[in-house]
């Protein structure tokens, strides 16, 4: 059960009704609409940080799914397991990002593992991030890639705590699909 009212098109505030014009926009919008002045800037930021960018959806999904696993956010793990599969990640890669099999079993390339190392160091720990993790990632990736990935990780952590704190529910169709794929 969500902890807050998830607004629907009937009670959507006048300033954000456009988000409800094409049917149910989902629980994140439904919860954010309670403070309508935050909806647009928040979606703008989260959309830019999690959506398609210079680094491509494959690495975005690395960041989003892995961060959500490290933060223990069921809502985002469910949603982005489905998005990851839709973005072309294999079931094995998804399982590796979810920590169900060793990382090496899912990712043969050291470059990709170094990226995941950066995600783990940021989202799976607190305090300073070790130099060797940064250096390992920098050997393979440009600064702008790591800056973009860092924004995605941070935005995902925000979303993780938002969804977990407010107990946002996973959509039924997502759960059904993940059950069929053995990834629920």
């Amino acid at each position, binding site marked *: 059960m969500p902890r807050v*009212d998830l*607004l629907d098109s*009937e*009670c*959507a*505030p*006048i*300033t954000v009704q456009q988000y409800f014009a094409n049917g149910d926009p989902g629980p994140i919008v439904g919860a954010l*609409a*309670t*403070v*309508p*002045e935050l909806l647009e*800037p928040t979606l703008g930021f989260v959309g830019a940080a999690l959506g398609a960018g210079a680094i491509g959806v494959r690495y975005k999904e690395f960041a989003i799914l892995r961060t959500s696993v490290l933060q223990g956010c069921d809502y985002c793990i469910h949603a982005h397991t489905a998005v990851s599969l839709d973005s072309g990640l294999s079931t094995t890669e998804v399982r590796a990002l979810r920590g169900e099999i060793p990382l090496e079993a899912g990712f043969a390339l050291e470059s990709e593992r170094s990226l995941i190392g950066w995600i783990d160091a940021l989202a799976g720990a607190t305090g300073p991030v070790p130099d060797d993790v940064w250096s390992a990632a920098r050997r393979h990736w440009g600064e702008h890639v790591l800056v973009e990935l860092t924004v995605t990780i941070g935005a995902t952590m925000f979303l993780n705590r938002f969804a977990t704190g407010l107990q946002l529910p996973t959509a039924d169709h997502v759960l059904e699909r993940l059950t069929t794929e053995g990834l629920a």
Partner: protein
Amino acid sequence: MTDTIAPSDTVADAVRSGELPGRVWLYSNYNCNLACSYCLTESSPRSERRQLSAEQMIAVAEQAKNLGFTALGITGGEPFLIPWLPETALAMAESLPLVLLTNGTLFTGDRFERAARLAHPDIALQISLDSHLPDVNDMARGPDNFAKVVQAVPLLIARGVRVRIATTVSGALDDPLLDPLKQLVASLGVREDDHLIRPIVRRGRADEVGLGIRAVARDIPNELTITADGAFWGSFGPTVRSGRLDTDLLLTRTILPLAVPAAALLAASRGMPAGTDARLGIR
């Protein structure tokens, strides 16, 4: 957030051109000593207060003036349940002229003396009276309402307080059956143009019992309305249904600085089709 705050001259221009109404409403509180059948906010003695502070109300008044708004209104709930309300209203009237809505049933003893202090050129009290027949009036508004109002009004006028009477009707606004009420109101010393006649709006408790005209956003004048729960489109915006605040006309949860909800109101107004509020006579 800065791009959502309109420069003050934009709001002032919109008020000057009539795009935005000049009046800013404040819901001082939601609780009331009465529990009228058509109440938009389901107010009653048991309602949560959800009260604005005096500091917030005075800040809204000052900032409304600076933004280019031209008038203020205080409503509730029953504002006179708040002991400091008259002093706050006087302070607010330093910024802009003010109309203060009240059910007029609390004006005895100390409360009368406090209300009498509101004899001020820029303050009017607006009191509800729905029928010249005590039983009919009191059916919707509660026992002895009629007697208390007709007693208080001439006494307030005698002390120099400007009093307006507001009549809420479920039928036609020009019904000849309203004539005796108009005569009664005039006999209390109220100026003819200080007697407002308006329809019940079907929101809040009125909606639950199927009373009044159906109103959607474009039917409701887009007066900026400030409450403890946020800023709304129109004074009929922050209604309550089955104990829950309606959020369909919510603009922002931020109330101060007032430029934030004012900008949101202006943006929402520009996105709305032309209204029919003049035809419905909601005010």
